[in-house]
């Protein structure tokens, strides 16, 4: 406060009683306030904002110092986690690959017991045709195969025979007039005249980008006229899709190439649509005669029946359950991976348990948590006495022993784990010794590996240092005088330990337990090597989905659950023990 006094009235010469009066007034007025009663500085700015301004510079400087690390952490740690969390719900591939089909499927009611209408099959043809040309349909097949086995082969097989469906329309048209074989003729017809419809092109470019996960832009050298887009909507869409593909993927010129079969099929559908003949007759754009000729000879084109065509390729397309799966998984975001992670599955009516033989994740989660608890417990039991001895020995000896504790850190994890394999296997060291001692018959050697026992033993050994170190650092701070005081107050050795020493060492146990538990809940290598089938953890399953089955969504969902479990435990620990009590050194 007195710092602000400089603004008060002051005189240079010796103080007089009058000065004292001024000073007293100044003391009252010295905390300057503005109209709303807030403190302000001498030049009238708000004190708060002035302080903030002063601190901001300091903060900015401090921020710049930590910026490299912050960015590094964000990029390499936060971002991957965020991306993983996102992947566990992301399901855009279905809508991106089959945009028309998923749109139309929305209104289909699976409970009616009927196949989707013909229009859905038509859309499926165009969607799948483009996807097959871009070789994206197999990816979708793999994705949907997680939910319904067999979809993968259904898509792959269908992709090969889509051309046949289109050729059924292409051949008669080309027989009618050779001009339909000419790319230039098609280009002229589809370009039309007058105002161009750029929206169609943009839509198709977006669609192409989504399908192939690329980000291409630019002029494709083709745009349909608005007139032709209204006259032949399906053909325009199919032709534009082909044009975009031709330019971006094949890097060819649109006018020089024949369109693919799907365009002929689209033209056939347009020609067959009700009222098309009249509108075509009235059209006078480029190649109008060719179009009118085709319209006049409709009878050469086969009746459009895509349902039958698909059923002909594979009768699985007639399976309502397949279509249910497509419908359930068509939204862009799905909880399907999470449901799968807890052995549930999605049906149009809601959730239901997966079949008995497909339920593994709940068991795995339970096992992971149970075994992590056992490992943490074993580490406490084994580590506590060691930490106690380390903390109570003279420094020289303690340092020597500490090296022994740290020794495992300097050995490869793989070597340590493999060593346990040597020790624990049925023809291994421990069994040999037991047999030699006559404790165990040669025929009944103990099974100690490739099961939970082996995993617990090996992981306890590997994680023990993580328990001992925090315990040690906490115990070091407990002065021996506490024990002496307790004893002088009449406590026996045990009471002194249990009532005085142990409670003070709890923060060390807590820190060690958190470390060991969190490490073990996500452990991978050791369970993989010594765990067999009965001793594997959830992380082994995650690794399997990441690297073998390539079901990243499920792996991400499992990982997210694991992450949440750890956070919940951490939170619970904070509530019960208090995270402030955790000391790591």
């Amino acid at each position, binding site marked *: 406060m007195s710092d602000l006094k400089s603004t008060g009235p002051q005189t240079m010469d010796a103080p007089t009683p009058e000065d004292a009066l001024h000073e007293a007034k100044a003391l009252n007025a010295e905390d300057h306030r503005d109209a709303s009663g807030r403190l302000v500085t001498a030049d009238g700015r708000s004190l708060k904002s002035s302080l903030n301004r002063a601190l901001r510079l300091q903060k900015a400087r401090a921020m710049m110092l930590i910026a490299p690390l912050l960015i590094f952490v964000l990029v390499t740690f936060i971002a991957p986690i965020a991306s993983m969390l996102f992947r566990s719900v992301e399901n855009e591939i279905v809508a991106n690959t089959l945009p028309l089909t998923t749109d139309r499927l929305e209104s289909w009611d699976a409970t009616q017991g009927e196949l989707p209408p013909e229009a859905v099959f038509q859309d499926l043809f165009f969607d799948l045709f483009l996807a097959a040309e871009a070789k994206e349909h197999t990816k979708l097949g793999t994705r949907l195969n997680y939910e319904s086995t067999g979809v993968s082969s259904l898509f792959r097989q269908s992709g090969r025979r889509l051309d046949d469906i289109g050729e059924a329309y292409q051949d008669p048209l080309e027989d009618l007039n050779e001009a339909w074989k000419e790319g230039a003729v098609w280009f002229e017809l589809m370009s039309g005249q007058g105002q161009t419809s750029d929206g169609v092109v943009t839509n198709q470019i977006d669609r192409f980008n989504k399908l192939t996960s690329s980000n291409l832009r630019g002029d494709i050298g083709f745009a349909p006229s608005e007139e032709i887009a209204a006259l032949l909507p399906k053909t325009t869409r199919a032709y534009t899709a082909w044009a975009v593909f031709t330019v971006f993927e094949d890097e060819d010129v649109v006018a020089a190439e024949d369109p693919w079969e799907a365009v002929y099929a689209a033209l056939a559908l347009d020609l067959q649509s009700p009222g098309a003949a009249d509108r075509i007759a009235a059209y006078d754009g480029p190649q109008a005669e060719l179009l009118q000729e085709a319209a006049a000879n409709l009878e050469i084109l086969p009746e459009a029946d895509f349902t039958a065509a698909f059923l002909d390729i594979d009768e699985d397309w007639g399976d309502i359950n397949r279509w249910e799966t497509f419908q359930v998984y068509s939204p862009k975001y799905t909880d399907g991976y999470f449901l799968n992670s807890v052995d549930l599955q999605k049906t149009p009516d809601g959730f239901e348990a997966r079949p008995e033989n497909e339920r593994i994740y709940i068991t795995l989660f339970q096992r992971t948590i149970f075994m992590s608890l056992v490992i943490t417990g074993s580490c406490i039991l084994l580590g506590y006495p060691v930490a106690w001895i380390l903390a109570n020995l003279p420094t020289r000896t303690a340092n020597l022993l500490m090296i022994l504790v740290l020794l495992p850190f300097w050995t490869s994890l793989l070597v340590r784990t493999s060593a346990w394999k040597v020790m624990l296997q049925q023809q291994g060291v421990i069994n040999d010794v037991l047999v030699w001692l006559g404790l165990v018959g040669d025929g009944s050697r103990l099974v100690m590996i490739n099961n939970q026992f082996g995993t617990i033993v090996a992981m306890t050994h590997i994680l023990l240092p993580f328990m001992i170190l925090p315990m040690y650092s906490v115990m070091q701070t407990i002065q021996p*005088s506490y024990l*002496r005081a307790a*004893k*002088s*107050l*009449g*406590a*026996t050795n045990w009471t002194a330990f249990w*009532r005085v020493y142990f409670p003070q060492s709890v923060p060390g146990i807590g820190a060690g337990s958190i470390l060991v538990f969190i490490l073990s809940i996500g452990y991978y290598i050791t369970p993989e090597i010594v765990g067999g089938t009965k001793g594997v953890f959830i992380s082994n399953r995650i690794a399997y989905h990441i690297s073998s089955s390539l079901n990243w969504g499920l792996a991400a969902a499992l990982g997210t659950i694991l992450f949440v479990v750890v956070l919940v435990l951490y939170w619970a620990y904070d509530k019960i023990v208090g995270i402030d009590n955790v000391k790591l050194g």
Partner: protein
Amino acid sequence: MADASANGAFVEFERVQKSYDGETLVVKDLNLSMPKGEFLTMLGPSGSGKTTCLMMLAGFETATHGDIRLDGTSINNIPPHKRGIGMVFQNYALFPHMTIAENLAFPLEVRKIGKAKREEKVKRALDMVEMGDFGGRRPAQLSGGQQQRVALARALVFEPELVLMDEPLGALDKQLREKMQFEITDLAHRLGITTVYVTHDQTEALTMSDRVAVFDDGRIQQLAPPDQLYEEPENSFVAQFIGENNTLEGTIKEIKGGLALVQLDDGGLIDCKPINVSEIGQRTRVSIRPERVEFNPARLSDDAHTLKAEVLEFIYMGDIFRTRLRVAGNNDFIVKTRNAPGQVRLKPGEQVEIGWLPEDCRALDAA
């Protein structure tokens, strides 16, 4: 408990020796006997063996040789928790995870005293040290002085007959320390507790104790009441260690009629009281307290020897003057005079004559 020992000693050390490494003795032949209710301080520089003695008494160290008796019973083989000795530690050693009340209840709990009785005793002990309102706090929430009081209350709550204190005031500031010194002695005398107090602060030892045992080199150098210790040190270590002291080196010329004539190294002659010197020609170290030196030879007896001195420094300290002189080759000869009316204020460079009563000047061993 009745005094079982023949000589009425409550605590007794008999020929106690202690060695940690089997090569050197930390405590050499300790003999000590304390009556009930005495406040005894073990004073000495660090490494003199005083804390080891305390730890042997508490039971945290075992004597290598000899016997320690409490109330006539040898306690050598009794574990600490069965000795029933209260102890206050240097850092208080209050259990940080318990409240003050829980700390105090701990010794009662392990003695299986009922809850009601326990609470009553805890309350009484806290009131005794004026900490009645702090029962629910944790040690970390208390100031040093408050922690000290709690530690004291905890050591007393189970009513031990013997209380040990290991430099309990070491961590406090000066003012608080003086206040606590008074409180501790007051409490000890009021309750009639036998107290063994360890410190390296001689003022503390002098002001608090009934008797002080000065330790050095594993032995008790002198065991005496404070005034005797200060005024009549028995050897030059005690003379040096307790209070401020001027020393002059010399040789015994003559001993007669309870007085010794000492020839100082520069040739001057002085009268002394021989303490632990007996032979003519023996080297001696003469000890004179700074406040017993006289500038006015008229106040001395007629036959007293005087010495010439040169004033080197005069320090004004308010209540006293401190004058540094050069005497018989010693440049650190200090004289303290009271700031009384008419007291001379010497200037550096002045030549003066100083003297003292022979009984204030003690001829001690030269070691």
